[in-house]
């Protein structure tokens, strides 16, 4: 039960940071998500994001900052396995599920639905 609480609190805290960027700095949603992705990549590089994931689970993996972390992780993992080219081949390795799912289901959505206004 404690796991759920931490997931809720950490995920919520990341969203609150996003809301502060939106309302406080008057950033557009695109600027806000980009800022969080870059932050996630940097935290991932510093090795600080994975402890957060261990601690808060989905509270840290579901926000978009985790996307940046996963990109770095994938690139480094493949670098270790295959050398320099691994940075390019590995970058999407972990995030592939999210991006592919969004493209595939987004396209299916466009086949079925039309905007409601």
């Amino acid at each position, binding site marked *: 039960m404690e796991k759920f609480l931490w997931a809720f609190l950490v995920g919520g805290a990341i969203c609150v940071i996003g809301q502060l960027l939106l309302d406080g700095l008057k950033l557009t*949603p695109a600027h806000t*998500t980009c800022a969080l*992705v870059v932050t996630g990549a940097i935290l991932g590089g510093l090795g600080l994001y994975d402890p957060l994931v261990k601690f808060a689970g989905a509270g840290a*993996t579901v926000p978009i900052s*985790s996307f940046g972390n996963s990109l770095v992780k994938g690139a480094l993992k493949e670098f270790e396995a295959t050398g320099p080219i691994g940075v390019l081949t590995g970058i999407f390795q972990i995030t592939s599920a999210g991006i592919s799912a969004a493209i595939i289901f987004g396209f299916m959505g*466009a086949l079925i639905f039309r905007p409601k206004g």
Partner: protein
Amino acid sequence: MFFVTYFHFSQESSGNPTVAVLIILTVLLTGFGVFDHIAQWAGAGTIIPVTGFANTIASAAIEHRSEGYVLGVGGNMFKLAGPVIVYGVFSAFVVSIVIIIFRALGVM
């Protein structure tokens, strides 16, 4: 979390089905025209999680259907999600290179 507890996915692999289910749910909510109303209340609470990413792709794809499936849906799908991927990949590339250089120099 739900997937770890109830479906016995490992901690590592639970991310993928969680993300996939959230994406499917978001596409459905977007298609039924509900997501934008939830987001008007929830703000960053729906934009920052992967639901926001899925919504940028689904809403752009659905919106531009009237311009055709190739140029409309295909061409506009990443209109809003594009920046996140571009900045994510480029920053991840820079961070990775920096780490690799540091490791080679024996700093880390």
